[in-house]
């Protein structure tokens, strides 16, 4: 029996408000989590060796143009052109400089180029939907893209994901590795979405939502959104054997 949105929403409501700044790994409203969440709690340890550092990426890995998702093809992608920018900080508020940020997203019609996404919305021959950049000295990142559309999925009947951009980030220590999703303010699909709602603390959930920023918006060109990302895993004081 495929559940309805009402049934999923009731499950979401029954779990909402619990403490915890991270998503619940065991979150029944997200059906795919049933067999894919560990039942044992994570074992706490003091990081050692490579865990006190992160891999190094540099200009050899990422080109300047990799951060513009609108220039990867001959023509311009359809949709609402926008800039997404912000800063990557560690849990003490310090800039995470020179680190890799990767993004991927659906096109303006809500379709991924991935072959497993077969929902009947058009592909855009001028949009792949992947980008990379390195953070600046102040931890800043910046992507030029188009706003992704919401899209249907099969978690339950008439299930729709709010529009989002996937982010993958590295910090200064291994435990700061973060894979997450950025959402857009005011999306009516928020309360219906079991993936966003798996973060059951409303204040933590709000940290996944970008802010519209008119100072980022450019005249007669594009709108702008700002989203700061905090990698809260423990950070080392200094790196061994490196000046970074």
């Amino acid at each position, binding site marked *: 029996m495929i559940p309805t949105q009402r049934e999923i929403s009731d499950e979401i409501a029954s779990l909402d408000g619990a403490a915890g700044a991270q998503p619940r790994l065991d979150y029944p409203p997200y059906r795919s989590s049933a067999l894919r969440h560990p039942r044992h709690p994570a*074992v706490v340890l003091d990081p050692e*060796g490579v865990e006190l550092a992160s*891999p190094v990426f540099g200009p050899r890995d990422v080109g300047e143009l990799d951060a513009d998702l609108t220039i990867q093809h001959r023509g311009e992608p359809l949709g609402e052109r926008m800039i997404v920018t912000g800063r990557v*900080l560690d849990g003490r508020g310090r800039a995470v400089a020179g680190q890799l940020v990767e993004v*991927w997203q659906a096109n303006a019609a809500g379709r991924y180029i991935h072959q497993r996404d077969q929902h009947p919305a058009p592909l855009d021959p001028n949009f792949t939907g992947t980008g990379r950049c390195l953070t600046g000295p102040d931890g800043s990142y910046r992507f030029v893209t188009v706003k992704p559309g919401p899209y249907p999925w099969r978690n339950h009947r008439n299930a729709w994901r709010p529009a989002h951009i996937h982010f*993958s980030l590295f910090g200064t220590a291994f435990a700061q590795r973060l894979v997450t999703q950025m959402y857009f303010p005011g999306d009516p699909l928020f309360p219906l979405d079991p993936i966003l709602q798996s973060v059951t603390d409303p204040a933590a959930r709000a940290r996944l939502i970008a802010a519209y920023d008119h100072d980022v918006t450019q005249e007669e060109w594009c709108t702008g959104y700002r989203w700061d*990302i905090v990698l809260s895993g423990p950070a080392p004081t200094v790196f061994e054997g490196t000046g970074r």
Partner: protein
Amino acid sequence: MSGPEGTPGQTVGPFFGYALPYPGGDTLVPPGRDGAIRLAGRVVDGAGAGVPDALVEVWQAGPTGAVVREPGSLRRDGWSFTGWGRAATDPTGAYSFTTLRPAPAVAGGPAWFAVAVVARGLLDRLLTRVYLPDDPDALAGDRLLSSLPDGRRSTLIARPGPDGYRFDVVLQGDRETVFLQHRPGHPG
């Protein structure tokens, strides 16, 4: 603890396959290079089925035991060892890396890979370690392994395999892998 609150994780979803994997991601050194080994296995769910939409990342010391500070993981030059790699699972849930054996970070200690795992259906990334089985004394003296109950300790120790080591990431169930959370509060 003061400072900004952390950004929560979210699942990597089903559609990362055209974004995160890249050519050479799983090849930290070319196969056949002197010292090259294979670290391979499966990502398995609570029903014992392979997870075909998972991504495994390794981060490791090189043959000296020191932390590698070498860029170029995303565009490998075939010579530089960066210590980091990424492999998507195949339709059977299998992953494979070609790499070098990590040396222990401290003399007499055990050698291990740091590993991160993401997957569709997994709402946040998981961290673990893959210990090499070769030095039983070093394993016996390891702080983390010693702290684990007998039945769980072995989930972190790779088995010898063809050309290297085998290690399965079991997300749930009787042989569930021990996943790790790093203790906060380092001086900063």
